[in-house]
């Protein structure tokens, strides 16, 4: 690929993440989070999108992002307060931005009318005069002309290694940026003891303490000269202190402090703002400082620990000693080699302070002491630290899939090898067998790890839902608040991809049918705004997705009436509330008086149910009249491996998913009855269930197996229907790697997939649901009606 194109592809990948960050930030803002960090994160996301768009010449995207960014910048600087209205406009703008990104990516167009309208809405948030000032009304000249500002580049020479004492007066720089300069003159003292000083039993701490008597001091330690521990000489001197001393003292008074050590140290005393002369003075000894760069490289800096240490305190403690405390604190600790760290920690603290200063400077001075905000900030800092601790890499999906496949093969090979060895009659205790056992454990571990790689948070699906909810709510004229929980719940990639449709449908259903109109809600004593909660959680080795609304709940008399009208249940059927609620999943059932555009074109919940069942999932509903309904669907965590029961039927080896199996038994001839002369049922504990001869059902043979000579495996389909599968024998239980039949051959009714067994043979995995449904209905299913 052309490098430019490949960078562009990277950019669009980043855009996805940026848009997600933006949306979650905006959603937080919608909930009233006007924390500067949240607003800043949203701003940064839009800003980055625009920046990248600029680099790739995506004009339409730049134009829109520019207006969006400008509005966010106004918020960031506190000029535009966050209101409900503003948040709503911003959320809609984020949808338009996402459209623009998608259009830029695909090379397609955008809805021009919507864009223009959105730009107008964004501009409407800003005072007209201000908008003109910002140049917002000239349709966003985003090119960012390279204005000069009278900027003079600072020239550097490459020939001169940048190692010696800095030209820039840091202390002055810092004080200029932080606090207004003190009125009293400030002395800057640079104190670098030589080894001789220590040899004469002089102590830097004492000197510094003495200095502190003269006035307020700020001491910083440069420990960058400290070598690695194995090169550290106990006799040598490595440390340099820089002391800022304020107070009305003369240079002589300052120097007097160093009277006894003056000959054994390098000392510079200058007024604040003057360049220190140290570099010139100690030309002969500059070898120490000349190697400072190397020293910095060699010093064992544990930055992670330092950053962690800096984060919670936020105060640049290591660098500043309050005058009230004894100055000895820092110097006493100093001679140890560890303090090399202090400097870096201090630097970062300083740097962070600089950022904060800037952020504060950019904001209107509003003192905010809201403890809630602080807690939030802390929580964020905590989570930020956690994220920082787990670095991630971006890996091509193909590579992961290849790995998954290879591991699948490995599992099969390992199983085959075990079986061969076992068949060859080697003793269980033989070295080979024991080695194989270890190999099996290892293989299982590798498999688990690989599966974990593929596991992804459901966030990628959830993040698309707020927009859907907004749009559906707008369309049906309802007010909806979407609450999402458990976005970080992980599930296999293959499952994630297929979650989107059912969730979409359930959410649409909840808004369209579940929630009342604002007027109805108010009449019913509820808030005008309905709440829909979308949650994901792990339960019993499966992932559960819940969609809950606080709407009107299932209208049971009506549901029952419709079911009777449509002939789905008998008029006098006695049904529990639960059973009535679950009628809505029956094929052909639709409670909407008018089939709306939202919940589907005549497609009811039965399709949702089927598409979930196709994933090995279940769906159920609980409802309380007037209070709302909750749909729960549960799905397996992976579609790549399966715990199965290996059975044989008509000389074929087949696998029945363990999750479907209730029990297995040897049928007695008297328990089996024929209905209508051909359909067998079996009586298991006073309940009749269809008896399906698997060999016949799959067309392996024509004549049924005499029931008494086989084994009946009682299975329950995801839909709750039961049947007994008649097979010849049960071979055992095994975890198998699922191989798609559709991908390699074609779909076969009654067969879900295939796998390769230990002996190298292909075994078909039974589609229990299909078998049960067929047996119960005795009519070909209407396959694959389009799920919404």
């Amino acid at each position, binding site marked *: 690929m052309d490098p430019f194109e490949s960078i562009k592809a990277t950019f669009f990948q*980043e855009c996805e993440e940026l848009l997600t960050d933006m949306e979650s930030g905006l959603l937080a803002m919608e909930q009233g989070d006007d924390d500067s960090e949240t607003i800043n994160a949203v701003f940064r996301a839009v800003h980055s999108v625009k920046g990248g768009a600029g680099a790739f010449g995506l004009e339409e995207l730049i134009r829109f992002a520019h207006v969006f960014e400008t509005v966010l910048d106004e918020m960031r600087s506190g000029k535009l307060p966050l209101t409900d209205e503003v948040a709503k406009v911003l959320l809609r703008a984020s949808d338009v931005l996402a459209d623009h990104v998608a259009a830029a990516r695909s090379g397609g167009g955008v809805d021009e009318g919507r864009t223009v309208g959105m730009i107008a809405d964004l501009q409407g948030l800003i005072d007209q005069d201000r908008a003109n000032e910002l140049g917002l009304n000239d349709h966003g000249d*985003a090119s960012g002309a390279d204005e000069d500002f009278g900027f003079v580049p*600072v020239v550097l020479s490459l020939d001169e290694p940048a190692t010696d004492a*800095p*030209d*820039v007066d840091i202390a002055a720089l810092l004080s200029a940026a932080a606090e207004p300069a003190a009125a009293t003159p400030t002395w800057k003292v640079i104190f670098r003891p030589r080894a001789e000083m220590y040899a004469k039993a002089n102590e830097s701490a004492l000197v510094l303490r003495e200095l502190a008597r003269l006035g307020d001091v700020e001491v910083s330690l440069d420990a960058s000269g400290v070598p690695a521990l194995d090169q550290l000489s106990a006799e040598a001197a490595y440390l340099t202190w820089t002391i800022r001393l304020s107070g009305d003292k003369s240079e002589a008074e300052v120097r007097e402090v160093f009277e006894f050590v003056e000959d054994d140290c390098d000392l510079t005393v200058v007024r604040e703002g003057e360049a220190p002369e140290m570099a010139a003075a100690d030309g002969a000894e500059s070898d120490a400082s000349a190697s400072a760069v190397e020293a910095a490289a060699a010093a064992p800096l544990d930055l992670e620990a330092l950053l962690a240490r800096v984060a919670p305190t936020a105060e640049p403690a290591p660098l500043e000693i309050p005058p009230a405390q004894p100055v000895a604190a820092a110097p006493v600790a100093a001679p140890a080699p560890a303090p090399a760290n202090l400097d870096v920690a201090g630097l970062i603290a300083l740097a*962070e302070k600089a950022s904060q200063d800037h952020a504060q400077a950019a904001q209107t001075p509003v003192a905010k002491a809201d403890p809630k905000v602080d807690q939030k900030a802390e929580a964020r800092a905590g989570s930020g630290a956690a994220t920082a601790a787990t670095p991630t890499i971006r890996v091509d999906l193909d590579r992961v899939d290849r790995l998954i496949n290879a591991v699948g093969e490995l599992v099969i090979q390992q199983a085959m090898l075990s079986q061969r060895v076992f068949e060859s009659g080697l003793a269980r205790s033989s070295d080979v067998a024991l080695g194989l056992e270890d190999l099996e454990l290892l293989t299982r571990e590798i498999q688990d790890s690989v599966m974990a790689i593929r596991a992804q948070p459901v966030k990628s699906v959830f993040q698309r839902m707020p927009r859907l909810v907004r749009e559906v709510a707008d369309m049906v004229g309802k007010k909806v608040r979407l609450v999402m929980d458990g976005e970080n719940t992980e599930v296999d990639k293959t499952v994630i991809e297929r979650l989107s449709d059912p969730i979409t449908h359930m959410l649409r259903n909840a808004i369209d049918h579940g929630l009342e109109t604002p007027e109805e809600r108010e009449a019913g004593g509820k808030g005008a705004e309905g709440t829909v909660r979308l949650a994901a959680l792990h339960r019993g080795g499966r992932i559960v997705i819940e969609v809950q609304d606080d709407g009107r709940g299932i209208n049971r008399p009506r549901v029952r009436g419709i079911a009777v009208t449509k002939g789905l249940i008998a008029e006098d059927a006695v049904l529990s509330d639960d059973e009535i609620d679950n009628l809505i999943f029956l094929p052909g059932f639709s409670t909407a008086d008018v089939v709306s555009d939202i919940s589907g074109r005549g497609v009811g919940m039965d399709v949702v149910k089927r598409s979930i069942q196709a994933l090995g999932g279940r769906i159920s509903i609980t409802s309380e009249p007037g209070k709302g309904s909750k749909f729960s669907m549960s799905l397996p965590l992976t579609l790549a491996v399966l715990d199965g029961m290996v059975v044989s039927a008509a000389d074929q080896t087949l696998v029945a998913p363990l999750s479907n199996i209730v029990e297995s038994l040897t049928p007695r001839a008297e328990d089996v009855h024929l209905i209508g002369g051909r359909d067998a049922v079996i009586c298991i504990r006073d309940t009749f269930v269809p008896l399906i001869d698997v060999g016949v059902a799959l067309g392996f043979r024509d004549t049924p197996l005499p029931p008494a000579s086989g084994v009946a495996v009682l299975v329950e389909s995801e839909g709750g229907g039961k049947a007994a599968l008649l097979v010849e024998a049960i071979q055992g239980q095994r975890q198998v790697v699922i191989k798609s039949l559709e991908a390699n051959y074609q779909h076969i009714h009654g067969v879900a997939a295939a796998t390769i067994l230990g002996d190298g043979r292909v075994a078909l995995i039974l589609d229990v649901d299909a078998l049960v449904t067929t047996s119960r209905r005795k009519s070909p299913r209407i396959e694959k009606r389009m799920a919404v």
Partner: protein
Amino acid sequence: MPAAAAIKTLIADDQQSMRSLIRTSLNALGINQTREAADGEDALRALLAQPANLVITDFNMPKLDGLGLLRAIRAHGPTSKTAVIMLTGRADRELVQRAVQFGVNNYLVKPFTTQTLKEKIEAVFGPLE
């Protein structure tokens, strides 16, 4: 006249695509000794581990922004003379002024061409060979 090949450069930007673009431009100018960092802290860490002649940093980065990075670079003796070119999303006078205050060597407004980048670097180091 410094050889472009001799300029050790560190690119700090939170966007991989931006880093790649800058690196591609630098390579076109013959500056091949480049390293990358995804935020200010990363950049500082990289600089402390191994010095560079030039840091091209984005202003807007998580954790530690460009100004913070600049300040940290200037405050630390061994790195204080590293050239810093600040990338900004737009010509923001206030931002540039602050960067000047902290001792930035030059600034560059995004999007930029390789030619502009060259000019900005040459303004600091003199003409590239």
